[in-house]
Every structure is written in C-alpha cells, then in structure tokens.
C-alpha cells in the first residue's frame, strides 16, 4: 500500500518535470541542407541516401504499420518513395516546394493507399483525407511511366541472355571502353567485341521496341 502510494507520487513528480522538456523542431538551415541532400541523392551518393533514410524511414514505417501494413511493406513502400524522390532529384526542373519529410510522407501514403486498394484492404477513413497535391500526382505519373519502361528493359535484357546482357551493361551502364570489355570478356580484339556488342544491341532493341511501341 505504502509502495503504491509513493510510486503514485513519484509518477506525478515525473510528469510535472517531464513536461518541462520541449524539443527543438524548427531549424533555418533545414531548407539549404535538404537541397544539398537532394543534389547528393541525384548523384547516387551513399552518404545522402543514408541520411535521408535514417531521418525519414521511422515515420514512414510507423505510418504503414499503423495502417494494416507489415515491416516488409514499410520497407518496400519507403524504397519506392525514395526511387521517386531520386528520379525527381535528377530532373533539372525539380524544385522541392515542401519539406523533404512532408514530400516523402505524401508520396508514401499515396503509394500505400494504392496498394491497399489493389489488395482490397481499403480503409474508408483514410481516403477522405487523401492528399491531392499536384506535385505528388505528377511525380507518381512519371514514376509509373518510367517503371513500365524499366520493366520492359528488364524483360528484354533477361530474354537476350547472359553474355549479351553483361556485354551491353558493361558498355552502356558501367561505361567501360571497348578495349577493357574485350579483355574481360575474352575477345581477341576490340573489333571482335564491337561486332558482338552490335549484334546484341540489335537483338535487344528489337525485343524492346516491339513491346514498347505496342
């Protein structure tokens, strides 16, 4: 009894003093800082990715978890949101009108809502405060288009099979020169490699464009 009473008193004291603790939230350098972060992100900079991830993932995770999602869902949604941010950060005309936190939150929320609708686990309470901001709509539209293209590319690359795929990736993505490629792929000379690359590219283009133009 005495113990209960004293712990109650302790609790009251604790609440009184804890209420004195106010956290600093606004910072004038945030805007500049976030611009720099976006620049880093556009250049695929590891540090920038880590900072954005660390600062914003917990909020998104909480959002997804509290709305019928799992930890894996949270991870997928946040990473898709990050891809959208990355795509936009690379665009020269992109200007972040809100805080990074708000932007990511809006995008992830929309993405998750869409997924819920697809899975028909729709929660009505959520749809009402749906964010209709243009910037989000635009970003999502571009993202979807690009995603479709990339899926086609992925499919096409997988269809042409491995020596071809690796060759093309080495040249067009990793930007290696023909001499290096010839060496690492075991071709006698650069001309041989060039020939092979040409054949592969033609096959890839054919597969890609037949589907792309449909």
């Amino acid at each position, binding site marked *: *009894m*005495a*113990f209960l*009473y*004293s712990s109650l*008193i*302790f609790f009251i*004291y*604790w609440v*009184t*003093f804890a209420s*004195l*603790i106010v956290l600093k939230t606004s910072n004038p350098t945030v805007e500049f800082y976030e611009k720099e972060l976006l620049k880093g992100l556009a250049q*695929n900079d*590891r540090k920038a*990715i*880590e900072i954005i*991830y*660390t600062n914003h*993932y*917990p909020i998104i995770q909480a959002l997804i978890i509290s709305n019928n999602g799992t930890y894996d869902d949270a*991870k997928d949604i946040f*990473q898709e949101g*990050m*891809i959208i941010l*990355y*795509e936009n950060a690379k665009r020269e005309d992109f200007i972040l009108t809100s805080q990074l936190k708000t932007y990511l939150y809006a995008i992830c929320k929309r993405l998750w809502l869409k997924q819920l609708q697809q899975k028909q686990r729709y929660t009505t309470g959520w749809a009402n405060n749906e964010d209709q901001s243009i910037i989000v709509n635009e970003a999502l539209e571009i993202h979807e288009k*690009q995603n479709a*293209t*990339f899926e086609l*590319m*992925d499919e096409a690359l997988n269809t042409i099979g491995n020596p071809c795929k690796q060759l*093309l*990736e080495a040249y*067009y*993505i*990793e930007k290696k020169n023909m001499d290096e490629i010839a060496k690492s792929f075991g071709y006698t000379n650069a001309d041989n490699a*060039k*020939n092979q690359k*040409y054949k592969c*590219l033609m096959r890839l*283009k054919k597969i*890609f*464009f037949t589907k792309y133009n449909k």
Partner: protein
Amino acid sequence: MEDIILLENIERYLTGQMSETERLFFEEYCANNPEVNAQIKEHKLFATYLEQYGEQKNFIAQLRQVHEIVIHTHTKKKPSSIVYLWNRYKRTIAVAASIAGITTLITSSVFTYFTPKTKPNQVQELVNKVNNIERKQTELGTTIKRVATKDNEPATPVLYNGTGFLIDGKGYLVTSAHVVKNTKSIRVQNYKGETYDAEIMNIDTDHDLAFLKITDNQYKPITHLPYTIRKNNIDLGEEIFTLGYPRKEIVYGEGYASANTGYNGDTLSCQLAISANPGNSGGPILSKNGDVVGILSARQLQADGVVFAIRSANIYRLLNQLKQEDIAYQKIKLPSYSSLKNTDRTQQIKRVKDCVFMIEVY
C-alpha cells in the same frame, strides 16, 4: 554506310566523341539520308533508357544496403537520445528524484507508524507461562501461609507448566522439549496433587521431545501402563482424546485427526482438531482404542481448533537412538499391551489420568 559503322558513328556523335570535321561530315551525311535521323533519335532514346535503367538498379541496390544498416543502427541509436536527455535534464531529474525519494520515505514511515502491529509468530507453543503478577501473588500467599504455618521451606515460583505422561511405569516420562528447555529443576504432579522431583534425561528440540525421569523416593512405580504407544501413523479422521493440565486441574479434550502434516507441511507432526490451551503441551493424544498416537505441541494462532502434535513414532525413533548411545536407556521398556480396548471413555480416562502428570518448571 554499313550498319555497324553507322551505329558506331551515331554513338560517337551522341556522346560527343567526334572531332569537328567528322561531326560536320556526319551531319552532312544525315542531311542527305533523312532515315538516319530517325535512327539517331531512336538510339538516343534507347541509350538513355538503358542508362537510367542501370542507374535505378544501382540505386535500388544501394537502398537495400542502407536499409540493413539503418535498421541495425537505428535500434542502437535510440539510447543516444536518452543519453542526450539525461545529460540535459540531469539536474531536474536529480531534484525530482530526491523530492520523490523524500516523499516516499515520509509516506512509508507514516504508514508503518500507523499500521497496527501484527504478532510475528503464528504458532503458539502451549506452555503455560505463569504470569509475573500471578506469581508474585502466589509468592505473597505462600509467604503469608509460611508465616502462618511456620513452614521454613521456601516456595519456589513456577515459571512454566506443561503436561507429560509415563512411557514406563518405573517413572520415565515424555513431554515436549519446549516445556522443559532452559532449565534443570523440574517437578511433576499427578491429578491427586502429589508432587515428585524429576530430572531431564534428554531433550531433542528438533523433534520437540524430552525424556524425564522421576527421581523422587516417594514415587511408587506403576506396574502396568494402560495404554500402548503406536508405531504407525495416525489415520485421517481418527477419533482422538487428550488429557492435560491447562489449569491446576486435569482437563479432558476430544477431537479428530484433521491432516497428515503439521505446520507448513512438517511431516514429523500432524494436525488435529481439538481444543487445547497453554499448559496442554506435552500431553498424550490417545486413540479410541487407548494407544498414544502423538504428543500435543502447538496450536495455530489465526485458526480456530488447529492443533499440532508430534507423531508417537518419533518416541520409538528417539529412544532407539538413545539406547545405542547410552546404556541407561536400556532400562526403559515401552508398554506393549493396551487394556483400554473396548472400554468406555470414562473408564479409559480413569485409568489414563494416573499416568498423566503436570510438569512444573522452576
């Protein structure tokens, strides 16, 4: 132009690897062959797609790695914010804690001060501790009497009394150890009021048993004890009775065996439902056939009619042990025949009460 060379030129043109003259020549070539323009456009588009595709893949791979790192460090990083808060509000917390601590101390001390005290021991040993005042009165009474009768022998005050019973007619008694501990001078008194000097032979506090021997010359040995002492356990529900001296007078009580173990599951003793009072300690518990099944020892304070008795088998055990150690004990012969079977209770009491003594400790 051959296709492969055309493609190479397109690529070089697009990536800006051509020299000025080459570029002019190529642009002129394009102007002459308009279908090349479409090819250039197509290739440009395709190359960007392929490049972006690669970059995105790379980015996703990085995201996955970062995710693992963040998930791992995030859980570890959490304490840092607590540490930060701790460092910042150390003083406030210290003040709060000390105020809380003082309040706790005050409240708990107030509580302990006002809570009614409870008695710590839950089992009361049924020794009759003779009240100090009562003792002084008796002393006074005897002084007066002494003056009146001119009796020169000083009366020694009684400290405790309990009950004991014969296990051998030659004058060997059994009682509870707690009745006779811390003393040397003992007197026993039968129901007629005849008092004899006795001495302690052995005290076993673990089993709460003591053997006494009547040393007085006046004592006339009883040739045959009416009861036997039972070796096996008491049965649950068995009807029992006892004789004892909670008063100066011998008092009869009856009840039944209510549990196979004693206080807190003690297997040396058993639980009885019988009325017992201080002074009953050491008294025999007899079954209806007249065999001793136990020695009354204590009662539980909170519960009514819960009394504990030491099993009679312990007498055998202790005696056998002592017989091996000391030749003096070999004289003791426990009674082997009960003459109380199939007699009525009043007859039983009449015969048993000769063998039950009040033990007085000075």
